[in-house]
């Protein structure tokens, strides 16, 4: 690669991620971005000026050496690039696709100050895909067997990451999954047009090759309690990564109408149970012609675009403005390309049903923006003006509460008033000895990468705990029921922590 000056690099145009055209992609569930070619990746990599003090790295919850791997790509050493990423990130193919780069690594990219930041996510995805397609992934070094056993609850992003870190340190790891297949939210909650199954499955296979044991159809708390795991089953520690699963509703009239789904229900029927292939797969999904989706977060975008692919005429209702939509910029952009009707500043107040309890219409109040609320965003306030849209199917996409099964079956695991599992923010120990937790279980609902970042820190501390370097007695687990739960604990600039904290608080109070 020619030596370019920073000025020359900064003048290079961004390489747009090639996408399948919207008219075509709304007819199938294929992945929307096509991915960079090696030439495109190298070209985009040239835009990185290799900052001495990069703004991107502190924005990454797992602290990837971003300029480092980009340099490898620029030099055409793609295997070197992925090797560098893998030093800190176990799931790059997934993160390259689903991380909110616009709010994390790319937000402080110096190139982005004047133009568009370097496409870090697209480059990460390129490197990971290169590795998978060329089958060049190598097993990392595994420390000698410590004789310790760790149970990991849940096979979502937190569970998979914890399993990886723990087995590398020489501990035996068994992952217990409640569903019949691995992946957790990566499978049931993220559409195939964003994250194909073979990517998730290849990461699981990799863990199996490393010696991680996976068990399905096991609901920890029910079939085995935490006490069983730590007692009779002889595990030395447990990591809970069982996620946020209990869907929120609005508490408005008509929400138990036939044709009202939670996003979890809707997406699970399709992506876990393959309801879109009914009747070959026998899980039904009943979707009428006119579909209303309530909420404009990432999951809202996933539902909207899924409903479109199932042939719906789709409208998104969101009580705040377009600019306040919490979705990842790319998801919002892709959804906007896919022929969706948008009703911002529209707050659903009632779902109208007929005599058979079937949904017929949605009634909304028009909103306007008022004073900033505790999240710092201008608060939507009612105008007293209402409208009614005829509708056949409604999907609530308002986020989730933490899955209650483990805390309800083990009272030693402390939770706050939202059901979030309380942990020591440094070590991720819970109030029960030997039990650690991370991911949505301790945040109440966040991102894949944040769950991974926490799982990694938790796994490091499980390792220390098993080696006797830290003790449970010294853990500082909050007991105040108003304590918000862990927001972020890797080295992040304060302003970003604040931003995420506010989003999380807002997320939790969104339905109230």
């Amino acid at each position: 690669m020619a030596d370019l000056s920073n000025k020359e690099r900064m003048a290079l145009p961004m390489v747009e991620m090639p996408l399948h055209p919207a008219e075509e992609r709304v007819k199938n569930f294929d992945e929307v971005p096509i991915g960079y070619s090696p030439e495109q990746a190298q070209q985009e990599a040239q835009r990185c000026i290799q900052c001495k003090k990069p703004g991107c790295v502190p924005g990454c919850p797992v602290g990837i050496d971003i300029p480092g791997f980009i340099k490898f790509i620029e030099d055409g050493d793609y295997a070197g690039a992925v090797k560098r990423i893998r030093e800190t990130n176990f799931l790059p193919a997934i993160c390259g696709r689903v991380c909110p780069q616009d709010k994390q690594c790319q937000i402080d990219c110096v190139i982005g100050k004047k133009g568009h930041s370097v496409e870090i996510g697209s480059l990460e995805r390129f490197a990971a895909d290169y590795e998978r397609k060329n089958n060049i992934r190598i097993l990392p070094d595994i420390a000698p067997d410590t004789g310790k056993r760790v149970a990991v609850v849940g096979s979502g992003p937190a569970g998979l990451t914890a399993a990886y870190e723990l087995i590398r340190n020489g501990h035996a790891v068994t992952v217990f999954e409640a569903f019949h297949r691995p992946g957790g939210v990566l499978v049931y909650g993220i559409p195939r047009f964003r994250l194909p199954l073979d990517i998730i499955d290849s990461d699981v296979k990799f863990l199996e090759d490393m010696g991680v044991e996976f068990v399905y159809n096991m609901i920890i708390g029910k079939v085995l309690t935490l006490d069983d795991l730590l007692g009779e089953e002889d595990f030395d520690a447990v990591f809970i990564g069982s996620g946020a699963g209990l869907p929120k509703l609005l508490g408005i009239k008509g929400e138990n109408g036939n044709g009202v789904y939670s996003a979890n229900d809707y997406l699970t029927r399709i992506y876990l149970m393959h309801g879109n292939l009914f009747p070959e797969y026998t899980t039904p999904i009943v979707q009428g012609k006119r579909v209303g989706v309530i909420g404009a977060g990432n999951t809202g975008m996933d539902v909207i675009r899924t409903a479109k692919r199932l042939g719906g005429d789709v409208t998104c209702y969101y009580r705040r403005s377009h600019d306040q939509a919490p979705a990842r910029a790319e998801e919002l952009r892709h959804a906007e390309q896919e022929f969706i009707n948008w009703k911002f500043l529209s707050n659903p107040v009632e779902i109208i049903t007929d005599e058979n309890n079937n949904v017929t219409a949605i009634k909304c109040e028009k909103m306007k923006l008022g004073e900033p609320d505790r999240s710092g965003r201008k608060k939507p306030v009612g105008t007293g003006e209402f409208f009614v849209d005829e509708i056949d199917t409604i999907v609530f996409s308002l986020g989730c509460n933490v899955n209650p099964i483990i805390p309800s079956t083990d009272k030693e695991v402390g939770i706050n008033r939202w059901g979030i599992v309380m942990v020591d923010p440094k070590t991720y120990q819970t109030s029960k000895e030997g039990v650690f937790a991370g991911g949505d279980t301790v945040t109440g609902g966040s991102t894949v990468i944040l769950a991974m970042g926490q799982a990694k820190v938790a796994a490091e501390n499980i390792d220390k705990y098993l080696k006797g370097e830290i003790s449970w007695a010294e853990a500082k687990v909050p007991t105040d029921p108003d304590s918000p739960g862990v927001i972020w604990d890797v080295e992040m600039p304060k302003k970003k922590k604040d931003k995420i904290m506010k989003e999380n608080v807002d997320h939790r109070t969104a339905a109230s």
Partner: protein
Amino acid sequence: MSNRYVQSFKILDKKELCPNTYWYEIEAPFIARKIEAGQFIIMKPFKKSERIPLSICGWDREKGTLHIIVMSAGKTTRDLNEMQVGDCLSDIVGPLGQRSHIDKYHDACVLIGGGYGTGAVIPTARDLKALGNRVIGIVGARNKDLLLMVDELKEVCDEVYLTTNDGSIGIEGFVTHALEKILEKEDISYVLAVGPVPMMMAVTKLTEPKGINTWVSLNAIMVDGTGMCGTCRVTVGGETKFACFHGPDFDGHKVDFDELMKRQKMYVEVEKKALEAVGK
């Protein structure tokens, strides 16, 4: 995989109880070790099947098996009923839901099973008996050939009433007629009804004026059974509850049966399509 947590879900025994309704003994040692009266399982006979909830009529903790009754109703139950001894189900998860809410009561406990729901009341009847209660069973069906699990229920009850719509055996009419007869004779502290929704509703209507503690087991439509999807929402005392997590037993006097019955019709049309697609 060869790890010790893998359960085979193999069918060890199968008996026809009446046309289209079978009793199974299935190997699931971890679930069998933990399951309690009132809890349920979710199963998937084949890889491509829907997940469906099933109540449990018994278990053998030593042997590591579950006993279930399956009546062919939709596609998934028909598929299951075609499986034979030696076949393995694709997936079973459990135990799910909360155990039956029981105690030592002053007066009699009446356990009512309608159709395939009869099996489900047996474990609760056994537990009530073990607590020293007087336990009365009522089993109802359209005719005597469709009555299920009568002998098994008799083993755990002090008395069992049979009702048939055609009067071919026992009291002619519905389970509520037997319940009325019991009420004429003695006081009742506790009622549990498991069966078709209209039957459970009729039972609650009868006990409500008398203020009898009445529970119904709601086998609403479920997908994941862990509270994750919210498909099994049911309104109880004006609040939305998830049958899979908060239930399956609920205070029958607080359940919005009208909404529940309408919600159960949500998938009737597509279910027909599933059956048509396989030419059944």
